[in-house]
């Protein structure tokens, strides 16, 4: 008897059939990981502990706010992450590696800006671009081009540009500035990686793919694998962002707004800490009216490219050693690009 299904328990306001999660094992398995009993224990604890936990949480508005922000970040990101995972699994399963060799310019230095420009094609949250970039690399696209795409897609797609136009109705140059700054930063990072990056730094977790697997099976395998990796790290990013969101006091922002250099760095840091979706950050930037336009441009340039949520996703998809180098590089380039374009255009 396989006994993998836990009997469904009523309660916690829904009757979901408690499924298994974690490593699936063939018939006659021994519990190598013991995931199933853990899940069962968690569900039982949730069932009986719910009144206590809910009671402990209520009446503490800081914790409630934190919980709401955390859940909302995850809930908002998940549809886009799923979309990205599905698209990337399609890429891995159905697009041959030779496609990229033919479609992009032969010289890598030109492939980077072309890939960055392709970012306008992928509307949506930054969460979708990470798994897609991962599978692009897996499918044979040179990493610098894939990273340029990874950075530009969340920042220059039509939805984001449209929301920027709406949020800054009397500063149309802001839209142009955002577009230019983001493309510039994406290309520079791509070129820097082209020149200095090492392939061995990228550690894509290996897929369990065999020659004889059908395309559908490859799709399923890639999707499941990417989702598990990316999803877990998304939660890490969401937790961090929610903590920072609740902890950053507004009086601190008011205090730094007037100082020239600090204000730029403060907003850049805020963009990283708050992990706001790239479609919404224009409105948040518009509301930060005590800051200069250039500081806010830096905020808009940095946010979609690097923040705690993205860092976690990148670490999950490409490996921690990669992410810990890529993130600071992106941050510095994005700030510099924002400053440059802001000084030039605004």
């Amino acid at each position, binding site marked *: 008897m396989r006994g*993998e299904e836990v009997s469904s328990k009523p309660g*916690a*306001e*829904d009757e*979901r059939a*408690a*499924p*298994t*999660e*974690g*490593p699936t094992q*063939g*018939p006659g*398995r021994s519990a190598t990981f013991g*995931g199933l009993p853990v899940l069962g224990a968690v569900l039982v604890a949730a069932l009986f502990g719910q009144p206590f936990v*809910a009671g402990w949480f209520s009446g503490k*508005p800081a914790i*409630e*706010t934190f*919980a*709401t*922000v*955390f*859940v*909302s*970040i*995850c*809930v*908002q990101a*998940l*549809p886009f992450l*799923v*979309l990205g995972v*599905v698209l990337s699994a399609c890429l891995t399963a159905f697009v041959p590696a030779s496609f990229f060799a033919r479609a992009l310019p032969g010289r890598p230095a030109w492939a980077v800006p072309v890939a960055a420009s392709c970012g306008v094609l992928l509307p949506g949250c930054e969460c979708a671009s990470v798994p897609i970039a991962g599978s692009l690399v897996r499918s044979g696209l040179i990493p610098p081009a894939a990273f340029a795409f990874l950075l530009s897609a969340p920042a220059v797609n039509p939805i984001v540009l449209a929301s920027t136009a709406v949020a800054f*109705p009397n500063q149309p140059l802001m839209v142009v500035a955002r577009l230019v700054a983001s493309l510039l930063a994406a290309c520079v990072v791509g070129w820097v990686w082209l020149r200095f990056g090492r392939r061995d730094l990228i550690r894509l977790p290996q897929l*369990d793919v065999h020659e004889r697997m059908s395309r559908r*099976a490859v799709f399923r395998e890639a*999707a*499941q694998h990417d*989702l*598990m990796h990316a*999803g*877990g790290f998304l*939660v*890490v990013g969401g937790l961090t962002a929610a903590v920072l969101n609740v902890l950053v*006091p*507004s009086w601190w*922002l*008011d205090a730094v707004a007037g100082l020239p250099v600090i204000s730029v760095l403060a907003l850049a840091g805020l963009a990283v800490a*708050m992990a*706001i*979706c790239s479609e*919404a*950050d224009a*409105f*948040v930037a*518009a*509301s930060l*009216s*005590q800051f200069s336009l250039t500081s806010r441009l830096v905020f808009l340039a940095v946010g979609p490219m690097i923040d705690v949520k993205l860092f976690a996703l990148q670490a999950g998809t490409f490996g921690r050693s990669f992410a810990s180098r890529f993130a600071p590089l992106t941050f510095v380039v994005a700030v510099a690009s924002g400053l440059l374009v802001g000084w030039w255009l605004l």
Partner: protein
Amino acid sequence: MVLVGAALARLSVSGSYTNYVKPGLGIPLLCAGVAVLGLGLWTLVADSTRAGPGQDQERHSHSHSAPRVAWLLCLPVFALYVVAPPALGSYAANLDSVSVTDPDWDAYPPLPRGDPVDITLVDFTIRAVWDNGDTLAHRRVRIIGFVTPRGDGTWDLTRLQMTCCAADVRSNRVQAVGADPEPADTWVRVIGHWIPGGGTKRGDAVPLLEIESVEVIDQPRQPYEF
């Protein structure tokens, strides 16, 4: 994974997702939930149909197991169903400093007919601060919001404005004059009219609202404004 998918799907169907993200995300949420659910079930089925100890050996040697970090996905589901975090309220509003964005319209359209006329808090605030309340003068308005006590016995009528998800909310508030405060975070529908004195043409102005009547209501289906 099946757990997450089911939770997502249920969330979108039940409609409580509006506590966390904008309503436009309902359909994608449902699709994503169904997709994840389907993928989870498909994986279960596919793995269970791989028969034979030979295959089993091979898979164990590949250490094909979900990464431990993936267990973290349980956390939001846990938070959602065990804790059931509420929509953001006065605490979040107080975290935000007062900032009314200038929409820079050339002309402010007059309010629709009606006495009192239903108006959103965002609309009221913008008109009061950036238009000197011209279009609000001599009109009775009806606004829905929640109570944020000020600590000195007075209170603000507040509403949170969201674009994408609860992490990017900004607060809008008007100071309520002439009515006693309800407990914090109580949702109310107030009828009143604008009175000058809250400051104008400044991003940090808080307009004044003279209250005629206060009615306690349930939290609206969409607690946030956009």
